[in-house]
């Protein structure tokens, strides 16, 4: 077999499990030289786990792994680097306090007589920066350049390690339209030089533009492959979701009742220059779409009192409220299932019982004494109504799967019977089964008259679940779309600030 026909990278039968969840159930993947392979799938399909294994961040439990036909085993990131595989992280890993040259050569500084050879390092850095189309002085501090350029520096860094395969995990999730275009140019340019790219994205439009081939994952398994001429939106969605969309989301439109939440010129501390106004009514599911960093999470956090508003008005059921902290928010009937479940949603080392009852302890207590009967009842209710899979109530939340953790978060809030439920990326990192249950729950709660405001970066989720959607761009609400007006294109145009096209 000559070198061109043996795939550059080939894995098969890859399995990986974490406590409480089987993340990969025997997946396979191959990649040719100079190919852009897109990897798609919903949250929790196992894409990120696979990427981490390919890049040596974590080992697989079992599976066959070959580079240019030779069997390899990666114990760590350096092993993967040696074989020319580099991961460009979703969260960038540059040291903001160091300049570009120092970042590119961090840990591999060229030396002369034991000291760093600054001039060699600068010369090399300039070469690699120009390969990714960056014309910045190499002594620029990494922290002082925008995120899109930082990403290009990461790529330059990978190239300087002789990377032959670049793995990019959601590279455009926080980039502006223009930065995205630049990145695409760089990727296409690298491809023409024989570098291969594995590209993970939720943005199907980007995949269509960039990919030579698409591999689709669902629930830790390969579910299909599309060659370049087959790549279109419907094919991709069908494979990802595994059924017709309407069946998966199963929405019934309720007639919205009276407004529950109404914001008028609310000023969030993150973007105080852009006052925000919106409304959510009883029985309504409202989505907030936009790019990462558009201020969506911050909006929910301001409504919930984590970062109190600087001005403007917030009304709950027509009454103006000032919400200075989460306690105040909870007392007027607001609940938040935060984006960062592990940091903000749960106390991981505590049990299912202790987590489920945390917000309702005080309500059920008398003079500060724990009411253990009420606590058990709240827990039982959460576990049963949310179908939380746990061996017992004393199991530490840490050892449950992402889906079950999210169900605890929802369960603990349902015990407080909120009027307004805020959900921040409600299905991030959870498997398809649990996802469907969460959608069903949202539907059921809305049917009972709860107002739901949810933030999602998953286009399909917004399109599938929202009665109405607001789109945010750089801290502003750039548009509002009714269910009929919603489309991937309309949302992306508003999300990237391309207002004229919307």
């Amino acid at each position, binding site marked *: 077999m000559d070198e061109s026909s043996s795939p550059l990278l080939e894995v098969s039968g890859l399995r990986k499990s974490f*406590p*409480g969840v089987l993340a990969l159930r025997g997946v396979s993947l191959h990649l040719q030289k100079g190919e852009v392979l897109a990897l798609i799938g919903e949250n929790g399909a196992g894409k990120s786990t696979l990427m981490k294994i390919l890049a040596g961040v974590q080992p697989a439990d079992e599976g066959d792994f070959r580079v240019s036909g030779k069997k390899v085993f990666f114990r760590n990131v350096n092993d993967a680097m040696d074989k020319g595989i580099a991961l460009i992280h979703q969260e960038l890993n540059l040291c903001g306090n160091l300049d570009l040259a120092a970042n590119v050569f961090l840990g591999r500084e060229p030396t002369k007589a034991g000291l760093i050879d600054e001039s060699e390092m600068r010369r090399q850095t300039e070469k690699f920066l120009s390969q990714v189309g960056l014309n910045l002085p190499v002594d620029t501090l990494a922290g002082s350049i925008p995120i899109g350029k930082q990403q290009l520096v990461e790529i330059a860094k990978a190239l300087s390690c002789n990377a032959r395969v670049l793995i990019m995990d959601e590279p455009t999730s926080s980039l502006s339209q223009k930065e995205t275009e630049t990145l695409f140019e760089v990727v296409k340019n690298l491809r023409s030089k024989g570098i291969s790219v594995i590209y993970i994205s939720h943005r199907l439009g980007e995949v269509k533009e960039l990919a030579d081939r698409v591999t689709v994952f669902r629930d830790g398994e390969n579910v299909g492959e599309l060659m370049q001429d087959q790549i279109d939106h419907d094919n991709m969605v069908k494979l990802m979701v595994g059924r017709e969309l309407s069946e998966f989301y199963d929405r019934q439109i309720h007639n919205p009742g009276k407004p529950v939440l109404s914001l008028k010129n609310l000023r969030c501390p993150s973007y105080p220059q852009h006052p925000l106004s919106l409304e959510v009514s009883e029985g309504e599911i409202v989505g907030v779409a936009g790019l990462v960093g558009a201020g969506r999470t911050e909006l929910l956090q301001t409504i*919930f009192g*984590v970062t109190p508003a600087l001005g403007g008005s917030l009304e709950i059921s027509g009454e103006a409220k000032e919400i200075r*902290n*989460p*306690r105040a*928010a*909870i*007392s007027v009937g607001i609940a*938040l299932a*935060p984006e960062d479940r592990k*940091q*903000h*949603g*749960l*106390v*991981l*080392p*505590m049990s299912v019982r*202790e987590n489920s009852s*945390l*917000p309702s*302890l*005080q309500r059920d*207590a008398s003079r*500060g*004494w*724990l009411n253990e009967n009420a606590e058990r009842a709240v827990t039982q209710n959460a576990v049963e109504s949310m179908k939380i*899979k*746990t*061996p017992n109530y004393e*199991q*530490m939340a840490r*050892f*449950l*799967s992402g889906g*079950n953790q999210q169900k605890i978060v929802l369960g*603990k809030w349902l015990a407080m019977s909120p009027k307004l439920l805020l959900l921040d990326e409600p299905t991030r990192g959870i498997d398809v089964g649990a996802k469907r249950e969460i959608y069903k729950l949202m539907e059921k709660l809305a049917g009972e008259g709860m107002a739901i405001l949810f933030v999602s970066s998953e286009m399909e989720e917004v399109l599938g679940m929202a009665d109405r959607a607001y789109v945010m761009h750089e801290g502003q609400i750039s548009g509002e779309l009714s269910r009929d007006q919603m489309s991937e294109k309309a949302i992306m145009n508003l999300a990237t600030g391309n207002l004229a096209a919307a």
Partner: protein
Amino acid sequence: MKKNVLGIFILLVAIFVITAVINPKFLNAYNMQNLIKWSSLYAVMSLGVAFVIITGGIDLSIGSVVGLVSVVLSICLKLEGMDPWSAIGITLVLSLGIGLLHGLLITKAKVQPFVVTLCGLLVYRSMGRWLTDNQSIGPMPYEEDAGYKNLEQIQGLDFLFSGKIALGSFNLPTPALFILVLSIAAAVFLRRTIWGRYLFALGNNEEGTRYSGIDTDRMKILAYVLCSLFAGIAGILFAFELDSVQPAQTGEFYELYAIAAAVLGGCSLRGGEGSVLGVVIAAAVIRLIYNSINMVGISTHLEFGILGLVILLGVIGDEFLKKAVARKQAAVKT
């Protein structure tokens, strides 16, 4: 009994038995009474700091609070001739105030607990020395003192705080009753009230707890107030125990013993863990080690070294236990 508490209890019994075998004098009543008394005094401070450590904080000022409280109490009783119960009240209010100040500085001014209480350590120590002109002083008045008129009442307090109750031939030191009451109160507080639960929750994940609607700042302040209050109670006990308070020395390094006992007793400095029983037993272990070194005839110059090694090994053992428990939980199929 939880596994880690069982571990420290076994350690206590083992040292106890070994010492008794090597030197039977260890078991005589006088030595036992002393051991119980000192263990109780240490345990009061250790319980206090456990509240703070459970929240993920630290209090380095305990020894200085002990020193300042015993100095202020002595001045009030002996020199000022103040009503004895008012004097006790003043010292308790003083310790509550110190705890409140720590809590406010940590939660509102956002100064790190280490820094706040380190400065406290320096300030309270020097206040005690300044108030007394660095002369030793005790709570018991002499004829020439203004407090002599209250002698009888002060003697009553002396019995309450450092007396002995005859149980047959054994004289139980009264501090043992204090630690009994305080540890039951602390255990009930931590395990049966919502505030105890909140302290554990915020020690594990402060942000997550705040997102659940709990006023984490107020709970942290409460922990520091309790810690200083317990240190203040220990200060009163020490004042009567020692009779003569040395403003520069009384209580010096006690915070380190208290922290060591809390850690050895199962509190993690990362926060979120701890048990009252474990801390009380660990305080006893620390006193026992001191006593055993003397009884067995090891050079007293090795005291600190042995203490340090025992604490280190105890904590390492505890970590292993925790990992084993975690593995067991993780292995349960969900």
